[in-house]
């Protein structure tokens, strides 16, 4: 079912492309395309034109990826599934790196930071660290327990050889002898994923917020609130949605292993749930971020009219710590996690021991997943 695979990747990459397109409106105005600029230059013609070129570039990257996979789809649907998202991400990365370069160049040539007052700000009072909402954790674990309970009930009636892998359209293309692991493997992995998500939201709450000198206190509070919400509720919603999706597909595999329709319906439901959850989380995040930006514009115009309020200091130019505007390496900074430069959420500090360990673990997990999915079935 090449058409199904093709449609699937087109929808997914279109969704990712849409996120890339709104990203310049979601990040700080003083970080256009992840380049740090002083407040006096947020509306510079170079900044505006670079963002325009970035957006056209993203659209072009998506069109090229669709065309390439249209050409590749007669060859192999697996190839399309694997290559098209990667191609799109790679092209978008190139667009980002190339378009932001003109801002960097204009900043250097025009000495934008010359005469700007820069400050680093922090709260000297100790921070009380809360814990992420337990409600999502409990709900997710409950869903897995229901799945396992159904599995226990149907276990005696399952055949000796059961399907464990399905193709893009729901047809069985992998089987295994019946065992506790082959039957309950997915629910057990789901428990691990839930624990991982909970751990992630806990880590992001522990991470101290980064205040920026150009933010008013109310803006900083709003931004910190949006990020805390993203860490706690956002990851919670994702873990619940994943538990429901994986539970549905697992139950579909037990009850109707030979029905393409049931499996397709379960997969589609999962997909719709995940996309909807991501959309809801991002829209809420976008709303609180744009509210904080609106507050900033208001404050700025008030200070122009009244002439009383002094312009707030700028955050220092910290581009040198961000390789390609995406990878943070700062040996002095003790923080393991820092807010992303151009995006939603956090990234690791590859200059800190904790950040290096975290990155290595993630790479090992990805390699391990690739080995189990690609190499091990090939050996059988």
């Amino acid at each position, binding site marked *: 079912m090449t058409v199904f695979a093709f449609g699937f990747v087109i929808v997914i990459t279109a969704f990712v492309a849409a996120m890339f397109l709104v990203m310049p409106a979601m990040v700080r105005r003083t970080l256009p395309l992840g380049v740090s600029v002083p407040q006096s230059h947020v509306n510079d013609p170079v900044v505006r034109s670079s963002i325009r070129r970035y957006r056209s570039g993203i659209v072009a990257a998506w069109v090229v990826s669709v065309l390439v996979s249209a050409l590749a789809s007669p060859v192999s649907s697996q190839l399309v599934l694997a290559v098209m998202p990667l191609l799109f991400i790679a092209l978008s990365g190139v667009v980002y790196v190339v378009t932001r370069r003109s801002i960097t160049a204009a900043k250097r040539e025009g000495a934008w930071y010359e005469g700007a007052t820069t400050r*680093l*700000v*922090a*709260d000297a009072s100790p921070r009380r660290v809360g814990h992420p909402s337990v409600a999502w954790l409990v709900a997710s674990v409950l869903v897995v327990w229901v799945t396992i309970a159904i599995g226990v009930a149907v276990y005696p009636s399952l055949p000796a050889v059961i399907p464990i892998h399905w193709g893009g359209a729901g047809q069985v293309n992998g089987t295994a002898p019946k065992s506790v692991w082959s039957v309950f493997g997915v629910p057990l992995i789901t428990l691990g994923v839930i624990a991982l998500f909970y751990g992630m939201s806990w880590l992001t709450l522990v991470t101290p917020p*980064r205040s920026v000198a150009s933010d008013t*206190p109310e803006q900083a509070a709003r931004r910190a609130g949006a990020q805390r919400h993203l860490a706690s509720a956002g990851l919670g919603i994702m873990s619940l949605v994943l538990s429901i999706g994986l539970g549905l597909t697992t139950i579909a595999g037990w009850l109707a292993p030979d029905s393409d329709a049931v499996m397709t319906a379960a997969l589609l439901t999962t997909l719709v749930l995940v996309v909807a959850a991501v959309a809801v989380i991002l829209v809420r995040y976008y709303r609180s971020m744009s509210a904080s930006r609106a507050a900033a514009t208001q404050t700025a115009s008030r200070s122009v009219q009244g002439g009383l309020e002094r312009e707030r200091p700028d955050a220092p130019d910290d581009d040198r710590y961000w390789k390609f505007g995406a990878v943070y390496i700062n040996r002095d900074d003790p923080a393991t996690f820092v807010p992303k430069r151009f995006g939603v959420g956090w990234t690791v500090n590859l200059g800190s021991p904790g950040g290096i360990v975290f990155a290595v673990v993630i790479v090992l997990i990805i390699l391990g997943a690739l080995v189990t999915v690609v190499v091990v079935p090939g050996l059988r």
Partner: protein
Amino acid sequence: MQIAIDPVSNVPLYQQLRDRVVEGIASGELSAGEPLAPVRQLAAQFGINPATVAKGYDLLRAEGLLLTHRTAGSVVARDPRNAPWHADAEADWSARLRTLLAEAVAQGMPDDGILQHARSALQTFSAARPTSDSTTKEDSR
């Protein structure tokens, strides 16, 4: 209390950190018994080396303005309600003040102007403080 430090200033960051905390105590934003963020937490908020923050805290400890407990962390030890400081600490401050005054005099500022600066600075501290008793001490001197 929000602290702002200038990363491109000639004044070292630890000195700026120490200066901002002293000003916070003078203006009543920080009072005795109030805790300060742990060194690593503050360094992670600034994105600077923890050793820099530790050095700033060391200065404050040496001046008796900060106390670090093993369990309770760093706590502000003194504020304007405390008894006057040690004689040698005061002598040290007086020497630094002399240099500061000399800078203004050398640049041609009249004595009245210097005193006016001093008075307005003291007023910003006492105005921000809920219980201003440093002014009475000032008057009795």
